[in-house]
């Protein structure tokens, strides 16, 4: 089974044998890859009961919970990596979630869809409608994405909070985009961060 492109980037850069917390782990696809291919001790947090059941049925350790509420209970530095993939934009308080991530993990991977990608811009500029794209398939009323963020927004936020960027990858489909053009061209961003 092939991983979603942002997950493949993360899986490719997690050190072997490390302890990993995957926040918003879905059905555990990344966790299973990390466990099977990189010998990681992976734990997950996931809000949807059906996804949790699927992940546990894969033999993974996953807790049903809400990143906005339940990260507070994790001890400092209890993981080598805390991962937040495609979940930041769904959090009620994404800044607080990010703080927890950087507290719980020695490093954090954060991936999110870039709302400044040109297709999204065009859709809003010319269509006058909230964009519905392949990456953002839900309509305005049923999207879980409640905090739309762009790559430049996120960079600015990191700078303000004094967060160190150890790596960044910008993706359109499976293609990597340059850092300079990322805010316009990339559909997804993956950041490797530490406090």
């Amino acid at each position, binding site marked *: 089974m092939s991983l979603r492109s942002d997950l493949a980037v993360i899986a490719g850069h997690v050190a072997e044998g490390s302890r990993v917390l995957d926040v918003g782990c879905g059905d555990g696809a990344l966790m299973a890859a990390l466990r099977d291919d990189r010998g990681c001790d992976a734990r997950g947090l996931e809000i949807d*009961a059906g996804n*949790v059941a699927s992940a546990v049925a894969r033999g993974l350790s996953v807790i049903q919970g809400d990143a906005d509420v339940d990260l507070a*209970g994790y001890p400092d530095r209890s993981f080598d990596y805390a991962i937040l993939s495609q979940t930041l934009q769904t959090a009620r308080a994404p800044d607080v979630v990010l703080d927890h991530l950087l507290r719980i993990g020695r490093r954090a991977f954060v991936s999110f869809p870039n709302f400044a990608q040109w297709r999204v811009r065009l859709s809003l500029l010319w269509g006058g409608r909230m964009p519905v794209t392949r990456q953002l398939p839900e309509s305005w009323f049923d999207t879980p994405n409640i905090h739309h963020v762009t790559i430049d927004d996120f960079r600015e936020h990191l700078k303000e909070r004094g967060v160190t960027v150890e790596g960044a990858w910008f993706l359109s489909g499976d293609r990597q985009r340059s850092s300079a053009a990322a805010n316009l061209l990339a559909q997804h961003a993956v950041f490797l961060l530490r406090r």
Partner: protein
Amino acid sequence: MTGDDRFGCNRHVTLPGPLRLDGGMLLSPVEIAYETYGTLDADGGNAILVCHALTGDQHVASEHPRTGKPGWWTRLIGPGKPIDPARDFVICSNVIGSCMGSSGPASVNPATGRPWGMAFPVITIRDMVRAQGMLLDHLGVARLKAVVGGSMGGMQALSWAATFPERIAAAVVIASTARHSAQNIAFHEVGRQAIMADPKWQGGDYYGGEPPAAGLAVARMAAHITYLSEAGLTEKFGRRLQARPGKEDGTKSFGFDADFQVESYLRHQGLAFVDRFDANSYLYITRALDYFDLAEEHGGLLANAFRDAPTRFCLVSFDTDWLYPTSESRAIVQALNAAGAPVSFVELSSPYGHDAFLLDAPEMNRVVDGFLKGGR
């Protein structure tokens, strides 16, 4: 293993003990009624202990000798089920304090030759677990692949992980809690007072005469309400009246017969219960539940109960369970996280309240199945 009479259904063993109880007394001998299913692997790695709830018994996957009903957890245990005797060696024992063959207030006090009655020592969940440990020694099981239980069975699974961490690879804790709340204790006290207010109780010394059936039935009725959800009761009975001769839809009696179907149902539950359960055992086991506070046993911090435990944990709660609500499972999950233990947790949706774990719950089976296989 054929021919070894330690294994099979309807087993009973008298172990010399003594078992040192949390209350300070020594229990000797220790009688344990139990059943096993399947075959213990040569390396002993396939043993699963299933723990029963307050009024449960060792007949987890075999017909109950007194009621003729099928085993109480055949939805989880059996051919093709998450716990399968074709693969697993399954052990289920009657807890001490109970009345299905293990040492309890109805068994004979060797000092007097008469039933213990209230002279039986008060026991705890951990005492039950230690007795199970003695049984495993007798069976030659050094280490368990898993301990699995719902409700009080889940408390035993937690207590196992805290008491014998080196003997248990995984714990499945369903619809349970790490401590009894004031509300839990309050409901139990209602039940105990109902029993003790029955003149037939006689200070617990009723063996050989008539048991305090009316008191025990009331205790069961009160407890049974806590096992069901309000929505479940409404759906099943609503305000519907009992059918009477000539009145299919029922009619109010303007008296105190069981007019409402829910009354009739509860009375039936109470009456059916007294046929199979001993009132004194009900007192002792509810006491053990009320005393249960795993954090208290570990310096007030629940995480300490699981510090450096090599055990994997799986917790399941049900959204309509108000006896041991999801928040109790979450507190355990937090403690396990703090202790760094591998833990899975899911809250499942069910209309049936606390009893959901005993009923048809395909998602629960999927989770338990995956969790148990994940450890191989």
